């Protein structure tokens, strides 16, 4: 790990950046770290417990962080997709951030339970990952670890859901979303939810009722996931933040699968490739407009 600590120390002491956003030991696994003092660079760690996607901290509206100055950020390949998304959607500039990418052998579901990566403990989002060797970086560190075991849990759940009749699926989601308390923690923790004003917060006109009722909960989560179509990087921060433990990643993954099938698009680490919502292609299917 000294490679990472040395690089962070160098970037800070040479004033290339003012803060390195990475991971440090916390009381419950690792937690996000904001290192501004080169002497503290030794605190940075990177291992399979680094489940968090730190890209949300690059949101230009997080004033408490932007006031620190130019950041460097430690990313896994999957997190680099979010950084690419922020560049693609002109929230940050490529020159405005130093990307320290870590070659990744998969991460755990939960940071607090340190254990071997097994098909039960590895994050569902690591299954089939093509970004273990990151492509968007200023510095790429570490040796590429072997491929992690596959946790099939989510794909199995999605397959089950897709086999259901629409009435069964409606019942499943009505049940899950009935727990939503509309705290919008999913939105706040999401690196790609950066709107200055969210539609859910608008009061004139009020598009979505703020109370936790079945129709409003459905409207909120449907709007959020559709707004994420082709943008969601599958980091599962929404699911980690949800105090009601709603399987929001299932919804997001279903939409991502649809985007891949219909638009041949996967949110990638290349900021120059526009997302489907950002381009008009005469070849796009429009069979839903009759």
């Amino acid at each position, binding site marked *: 790990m000294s490679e990472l600590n040395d690089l962070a120390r160098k970037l800070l002491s040479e004033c290339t950046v003012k803060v390195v956003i990475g991971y440090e030991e916390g009381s419950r696994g690792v937690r996000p770290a904001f290192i501004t003092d080169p002497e503290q660079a030794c605190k940075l760690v990177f291992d399979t417990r680094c489940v968090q996607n730190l890209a949300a901290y690059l949101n230009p509206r997080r004033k408490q962080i932007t006031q620190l100055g130019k950041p460097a950020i430690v990313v896994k390949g999957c997190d680099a997709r979010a950084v690419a998304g922020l560049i693609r959607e002109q929230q940050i500039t490529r020159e405005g951030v130093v990307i320290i990418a870590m070659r990744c052998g998969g991460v755990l579901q939960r940071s607090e339970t340190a254990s071997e990566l097994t098909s039960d403990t590895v994050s569902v989002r690591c299954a089939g990952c093509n970004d273990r060797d990151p492509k968007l970086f200023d510095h790429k560190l570490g040796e590429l670890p072997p491929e992690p075991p596959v946790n099939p849990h989510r794909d199995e759940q999605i397959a089950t859901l897709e086999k259901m009749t629409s009435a069964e699926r409606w019942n499943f989601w009505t049940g899950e979303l009935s727990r939503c308390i509309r705290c919008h923690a999913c939105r706040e923790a999401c690196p790609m939810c950066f709107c200055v004003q969210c539609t859910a917060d608008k009061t004139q006109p009020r598009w979505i009722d703020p*109370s936790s009722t079945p129709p409003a909960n459905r409207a909120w989560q449907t709007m959020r996931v559709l707004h994420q179509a082709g943008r969601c990087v599958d980091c599962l921060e929404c699911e980690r933040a949800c105090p009601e433990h709603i399987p929001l990643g299932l919804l997001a993954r279903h939409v991502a699968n649809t985007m891949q099938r219909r638009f041949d698009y996967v949110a990638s680490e290349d900021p120059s490739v526009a997302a489907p919502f950002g381009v008009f292609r005469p070849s796009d299917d429009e069979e839903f407009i009759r």
Partner: protein
Amino acid sequence: MTRRFLSHEKFAALVAALLASNTRVIAPVRAKDDPAQFDYLPIQKFRDAEFGARLPRRSAKEYFLPATEVLLHYKQTKAGVEIREVPTEAPPQVILGATPCDVAGLEVVDKVMGWDYCDELWFGRRQATTIVSFLCNMMDATCFCTAVGLAPDSFRGSDVLLVPVAGGYLAHVITSKGEALLQGYVVEADAAALADAEAAQNEARQAVEHHLPAIPAEFPGWLAANFDNPVWKTIALRCHGCGACAAVCPTCHCFDIVDEHESVDSGVRRRNWDSCQTSLFTLHASGHNPRQSQSERFRQRIQHKFSIYPSRFGEILCTGCGRCSRSCPGGMDLPKLLGELMTLANPGPEARNP
């Protein structure tokens, strides 16, 4: 206050009798989505509940202040607006196996709910509820109840506190409500049960005491005087402002009131949980927001809990349950932060005289 013995059989019989009488019984139940976790949920039979396994993910406050509730129904008529208020009497409920931190939180929040206006819905449910808490042996590194004047065997807010002993429980019968509940189910406690319980209670207290020293009486004053301390600029960098902490907190009680149309001429007025950690909480109609960044919003959370509420009501608005730390996606750790702030407030002799 009396101490009685409640056998396992009598405890099961008591719960069965409550359920048979259509009393809503809320107890820790293993979560469907994650078998390692527990939630406070209404049970249908005694076996649904598991006691003392793990601190439930959310506090029990939702059974007194639901995440959303209707306050009144309105209907526009030719003659004006017809208003129909909701009943403020609540059906009887028993909360079983709550932790002392969750139960104490209810008494702390009573202060604000009965302050300048008596919140009839809150007190309606408080009066209709009997609370049987359990000695807590489920603490982890994020627990710090003893730092805020409570303990794993605190009586505060409970009608009965049960302590597991050989063959059943030692029941600390705290209120007349608790006495009425246990009538006919308890017997005289023998010396062995009393000694067992005392040992268990001491052990539980010792297991949590070292997590954080007691918050000193001067701490609220220091916080108030240090509103502009530079520490607030950096203390909450990792906070996403998601408000999950407020959702799971036994003492966060802020709510928002909204009118929602259900048809062209009718609708409901609801109140919903709210959190000072979101920017919308303080957004003015003009577009100005006095709390511009998460630094100010997190400062508000600490100031309200550890300075503003104590100065107004003489109570710390925190029971040390540790849920905010456990649920935080950003890895904020309240006992650790409080420890840092307490050191700033009262530096050790070395720091004072370098």
